[in-house]
């Protein structure tokens, strides 16, 4: 690991003042420290946010939205009773990710900033425009079976690995950031960037900006009774998604009043599909409808390599997640969150 300076500011202001080009924020470290070990990332300075207790609060704001501090751990957020009650698929997504240990360490902001699992990004000896702009993309002709089928570019075909960000996208979360030029808000849909010609620009954060909180709108809790996260993976647990979907329905009188869904692991950002959502509004839930919506969600998907199979998998994952959402949010978190192997029977929660 390359040497670095480590500082431990006591306030957000101090942290922001300490930033300089080449510096990285250190939250839980589960992704950053790992990538520093492989040599994929070489920050000259780490600004450890561990002392900023102010970033660890979860609160319900007067307007009914929930504000989650940037350093709240994935585990604490998943277990938060209000999150479980109002935004259950956020918990399900969090609990389907990583391991119990990693969830204790990993933070909300760190999850938002999670880097791609593309092997060529992680390998400092491979060509990767995302890690080292202008070097090329070894993934294009390489081992790419799990890479993007949506929103990719010639420069980069990486996917965003986050489970958490998929329901956030569906639920219109808002990212609060602070930086040298003050505070601002970024809609989750604008937060992650598609690669285009500049895959090294992964998020809308400006240099020196720091995530301070995440907000879930009050209105998004209206989907709690019919909200699921479904994750397709290569082993039963402790594996990254190869396709996932967060699906949420607001039901009224047996019909879908409003639908939200987003796909994960298929693009460089969570793939929110407003047109497909619109197809669902006002309809009675059934398999054919969900299939149509799923097809619409994957419209425009193309293979970026040896991964055409993921397009069909994405469709099926979306259709299934919608069907699971229609069946109702389970009363208790499934033993295997977001898994097809969790018992699907059982009483839905009446939330």
């Amino acid at each position, binding site marked *: 690991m390359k040497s670095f300076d480590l500082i431990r500011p006591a306030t957000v202001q101090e942290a922001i003042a300490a930033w300089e080009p080449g510096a990285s924020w250190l939250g839980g470290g589960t992704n950053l420290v790992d990538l520093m070990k492989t040599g994929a990332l070489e920050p000259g300075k780490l600004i450890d946010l561990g002392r900023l207790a102010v970033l660890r609060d979860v609160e319900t704001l007067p307007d009914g939205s929930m504000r989650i501090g940037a350093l709240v751990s994935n585990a604490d957020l998943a277990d938060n009773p209000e999150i479980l009650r109002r935004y259950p698929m956020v918990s399900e997504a969090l609990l389907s990710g990583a391991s119990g240990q990693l969830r204790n360490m990993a933070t909300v902001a760190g999850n938002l900033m999670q880097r791609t699992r593309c092997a060529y990004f992680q390998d400092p000896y491979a060509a990767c425009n995302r890690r080292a702009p202008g070097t090329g993309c070894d993934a294009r002709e390489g081992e790419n079976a799990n890479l993007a089928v949506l929103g990719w570019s010639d420069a980069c075909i990486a996917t965003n690995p986050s489970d958490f960000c998929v329901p956030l996208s569906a639920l219109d979360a808002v990212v609060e950031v602070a930086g040298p030029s003050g505070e601002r808000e970024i809609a989750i849909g604008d937060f992650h960037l598609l690669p285009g010609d500049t895959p090294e620009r992964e998020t809308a954060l400006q240099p020196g900006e720091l995530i301070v909180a995440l907000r879930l709108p009050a209105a998004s809790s209206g989907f709690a009774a019919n909200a699921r996260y479904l994750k397709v993976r290569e*082993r039963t647990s402790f594996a990254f998604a190869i396709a996932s979907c967060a699906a949420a329905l607001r039901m009224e009188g047996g019909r879908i009043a409003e639908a939200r869904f987003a796909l994960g692991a298929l693009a460089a950002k969570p793939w929110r599909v407003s047109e497909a959502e619109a197809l669902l509004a006002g309809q009675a839930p059934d398999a054919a409808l969900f299939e149509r919506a799923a097809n619409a969600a994957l419209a425009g998907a193309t293979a970026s390599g040896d991964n055409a199979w993921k397009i069909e998998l994405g469709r*099926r994952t979306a259709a299934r997640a919608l069907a699971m959402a229609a069946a109702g949010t389970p009363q208790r978190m499934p033993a295997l969150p977001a898994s097809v*192997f969790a018992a699907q029977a059982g009483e839905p929660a009446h939330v």
Partner: protein
Amino acid sequence: MSDTLARPMRFGSNSGQPLTRRDGIAKVTGAATFAGDNSPEGLLHAVFVPATIARGHVTYLDVESAERHPGVTCVLTPQNRPPLQGDPSAKPTMFSFRIEVLQDDTVRYAGQPIALVVGETLEAATEGARLLSPRYEVEPVRTSLDDNEAFGFEPAGFGLPAGAEHGDVEAGHAASAKSVDVTYETAAQYHNAMETHAVVASWDGDRLTLDMPSQALMMSCAGYANFFGIPPENVTLSSPYLGGGFGSKAFVTGPQVLAILAARMAGRPVKLMLTRQQMFGPVGHRGATRQRLRLGIDENAELTVIDHEGLAETSTFDDFVEPAANASQGLYAARALRSTHRAVRLDIGTPGPMRAPGEASGSAALECAIDELAELAGIDPLECRLRNYAETEPGTGRPYSSKALRECYSQGAARFGWADRPLEPRQVRDENGLLTGWGMGTAFFPAPMFAAEATATLRPDGTALVETSAADMGQGAWTALAQIAADSLGLPMDKLEFRAGHSSLPDGGIAGGSGHTATAGGALHAAGTDVVQQLGQIAAADPASPLHGAGNGRFVARESRIYLEGDDTRSEAFADIMARTGSAEITGSGSASRPPEDAERHAMSSHGAVFAEVKVDPELGQMRVTRLVGAFAAGRIINPRLAESQLMGGMIWGISFALHEEAKFDHRSGRIVNADFAGYHVPVNADVQGLEVITVHEDDPFVNALGIKGVGEIGVTGTVGAIGNAIRHATGRRIRRFPIRVEDLLAG
């Protein structure tokens, strides 16, 4: 703290009792010291630099930058590496592999050591290694089975494999009423013991002390001594615990030689622990295979022929060819049998033996192909296997020393509920709508014995010391071997001091081939028996002993007494004999043996039957093994608790082989792109449920004096095929490539 939990002890034999592990408390408290846990005074840390190309030459290393990094003490490259006495390209013994120890600038595979950096701290050495920033002259690489010409591999010692042919194969093909001609592929797999290869080396003049996990302590001492021009007895090797081995810790490796060399250069102890990523290269792996099976049956579904061709990878510079096709020898009563092997030279590290070498890959293909035949014949897969049951060894006609496979089939099937299996695939869905399928496979593994020695010393206080350099890599040698030793001396376990895992002890042989308990146990049994006979003779010569005059007889011992064999009325307590005759310690020695005539006359193998249930979400390609029942006949079971654990572990390796493990190469760079535990999947806890093991009783009078076969590897065999067959049964899809992937189920 005592070394076992207090539990009621039955009278009689120690063997056969499900004792908890004698090293259990050490292992659950963190007191068990693995090689890399040692930190002698003055320790330096070494890190090797792995090649990031797979073929070519190193043209530049930025030694200056590395040396400048604070804490770096030494950079070892081909330019300054002192000479070694042993030739790394030579193969002085049957078990020698050619290794890379900076003998030149040539790169033969990705991950090969191209430099070693030593530092005062691990952090410094690690960064020093990175700063070397190698440059290369790159040559085109070959990393897939199609990338080079296949050649007929001539058997070469441990490079393996000979094929075999029995009966008239062409006539067998001609006589078949139905046949399959199928090709199966298996992926390259890496052992990945949880403990990476490690060494802590220190020199005192020309004496070398090593803390290093070893499956073969004496062989390791000789192997490392060879490179440093010292006699093997100058090497002291301590390997009380291995954090897993699976075949990868039996051999001399290049990185470990380099660390020892660095310790000699520095005059200080050096520690090297491979990183996880570095486990994918210089320490062996299970080579990828492509196997063609042509099987024929007559109208009774009896095999007319098994014709099994294996193609396997090896490296460009050494030989180890996965003997996959040999798995078809010795299992089913085909009229004709042929196993042939070809090899392909690739720019990869040399493969080596990995848990059930040959049998795992070969059985995966064979057991699926047998199922394909059963389906052709329209009969139950178990019925198909029973119709082809080999009463004697196919081909040779030799009787089995013992073979309770029929009982394995029946007990396993009964426990599993196999009789309820619908013949046709894709018939069953569970309450969640998941397709459910059942499959089975026959498990099979030879029961070899190797060479080992042991000593036993009975002390006047009624305790005994037994010693052998046996290795415990998790199989339970500390416990099972002690049980054997205690029995041989007629002592309860708490009177026994058992020493193992150190090179100062008698040669305990190799922990491999599923033969360690039989072999080291055989030596311990012989040593204990020797002591008992000596003590018996002392008593027989003593007029005051009830055994007086029995010197022509044989003696047996139990509960700290010597008995005249066949006459329970004549016995005397050890302590009484020793006290009266003023005996000091009595030391006996023994070695493992199998009478050659028994070995020649009999086929000797463990057998088993594995039944698998899988659930499959066919739309999403999700697969989960939900039940796995294995019934195994493996001779005498010394410790059922530990044997069952090992068999379960093997079966989970079967899950891993069938559904998870695969090293993925970038065929342009020759690098493995998933060389870590996030990308190279092995099962996690949630992948394992519904596991049951039945051990079927088997008395084997020929295999060795103790009747022990072995349980270390057989669990992998049979299981892979059972899972592949269960997925076929669940989905109607026959996947002929392992591991079976999500996308394989989605296609079509």
